[in-house]
């Protein structure tokens, strides 16, 4: 699935935008490619992924999935995209504090029947959070929560993996582990990747860099 941005301008940037960069121009995210979104704070990195994931529609212009304008999608259509097509790791994680890590992950896995516990456990081992699976999320550090949220976005099939500042609370060693897993899963699903980053040193090479 290709994702096209056509002269999209977020309402909050409408007045401050002097020249067309990414915003206000046409841009195509091609199926199966990897994109790094680079920008300082406040320039709309999260906004970009929010528009793709259908969380916000405060923009002018058109966002299309394979040529279809997403502004007409019903809530059920968005639900289908979010459980089969798009997987997103939110910048603010959006975990349920009162539930345990495994309950949080299962909540996502329950949307599709193809994920089993052993796969979740393997991922948790790799990321060094296996011992936390039965602990409530509110008792974890931000770095631990970030890795749980990361596992959660992998327990569904996807065409696009949208990661919004996924490394913000992680050390370099953990970043490297996560990059390997990202590469593995994108290959598994032949999926595209859009990753936003704020000044972290990355080992992974991206096919495209988007500056907003």
């Amino acid at each position: 699935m290709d994702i096209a941005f056509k002269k999209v301008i977020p309402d909050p940037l409408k007045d401050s935008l002097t020249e067309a960069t990414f915003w206000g121009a046409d841009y195509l995210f091609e199926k199966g490619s990897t994109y790094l979104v680079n920008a300082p704070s406040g320039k709309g990195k999260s906004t970009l992924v929010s528009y793709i994931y259908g969380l916000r529609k405060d923009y002018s212009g058109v966002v299309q999935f394979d040529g279809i304008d997403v502004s007409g999608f019903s809530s059920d259509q968005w639900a289908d995209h979010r459980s089969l097509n798009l997987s997103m790791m939110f910048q603010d994680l959006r975990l349920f504090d009162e539930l345990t890590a495994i309950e949080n992950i299962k909540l996502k896995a329950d949307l599709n029947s193809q994920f089993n516990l052993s796969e979740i456990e393997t991922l948790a081992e790799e990321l060094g959070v296996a011992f936390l699976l039965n602990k409530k999320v509110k008792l974890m550090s931000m770095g631990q929560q970030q890795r749980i949220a990361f596992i959660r976005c992998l327990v569904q099939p996807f065409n696009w993996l949208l990661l919004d500042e996924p490394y913000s609370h992680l050390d370099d060693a953990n970043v490297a582990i996560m990059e390997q897993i990202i590469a593995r899963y994108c290959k598994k699903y032949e999926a595209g990747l859009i990753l936003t980053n704020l000044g972290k040193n990355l080992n992974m090479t991206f096919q495209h860099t988007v500056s907003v």
Partner: protein
Amino acid sequence: MIKKLVLSKQSYSQLGIVLFGSVFGLLLMMLSIQLYMDIKEAIDKKKETIGSHFLVLSKPVTILNTLSNTPSVFSSEELEVIRTIPGIEKIAAFKSNAFKAKAGFALGGNMMYSDMFFEAVPEDFLEVEPGKWNWQNGRSVPMILPSEYLNLYNSGFAPVQNLPQISKNAAKVSGLKIQVSGNGGNEEFEAEIVAFTDRINSILVPESFIDYANGKYAETKKEGSSRVVLMSKDPSNEKLMKLIEDNGYETNMELLKSGKMSLVLNVILGLVLGIGSVVVLMAILGFIQYSQLLINKSTYEIRTLLQLGYKVKTVFVKYLSFYTVVMLLVFVFAGIGLMLIRSTLTDYLNEKGLELPGSVHFLVFAVSLFTIVLFLVINAIGTYRSIRKLAMPA
């Protein structure tokens, strides 16, 4: 797990208050409808006992009657005056016995005899099963007794005399005998009670029996009657009321009273129904507010579930099933309350001699079920809208 998430932000004290209000309102509504039906049926049944528009008039008794030992009776002129009042359909004088009579009851194995009097009115003033009210020599004598007599016996006489109390049905099957004497002869008849009435304060037997026994055993011939029964389209008609007042006739005002009483009761029950409906309405509003509050408190949970890919319908069903269970509970509690209050009331009224029909009326269930479904639909629409709002991109 979804259920746990979206329903975890309950405020149990608020839910309790709303629940209490709903149960209370629904109970008031059910009770008023039920009692309305009960009273209507009870009054209808009472009317059936002797027909709907019968009135018994008696001549007033003065000290002169007592001193002269001559009963005051209706003259044929007086009867004619009453007969000409518009709306009066028929009128008949009571016939009474001029022979000596005793009735025997089997009580605790012994026959107990007591002096008796009998009266008769034409059969078309009574609503008894055809055939039961015919008497021919050789058959047992059917009798209609005032309910008051049995009450008097059960509550006054029996406990003091150490005798068993008798229910209406038992009284109907217990063996009765009537001894008639006079003119130097006597005769014994089998007798049976076929009905109890609240309307005519007398011991009624068929006219044919009075005629037969009067003819054979009466020593003096009686003239006139001190009581008449009349049938009117409208017993509370003004001319009749004026005549009764002017002549000082005594009457069983019960029918008139019960007519007025049922009017008063209907007004009161209407009021209770009104209050019940208002309370139910407020409870529904309270519930809608509560469910909005619950959704507002769970905004993060609902929104996040939808963002993970859950459908509006999936989340909505969790709320709907919760409200359905809550409303069923309300229905059950109100139903239990209704049964309890009603059985207490039935016992109380039975003691007072008013019988309520047995079952809870169908209409009560229909109306309360309708109310509950109405609540669910209103609440479901509101809840669905709120959830859908959270699902759409901002």
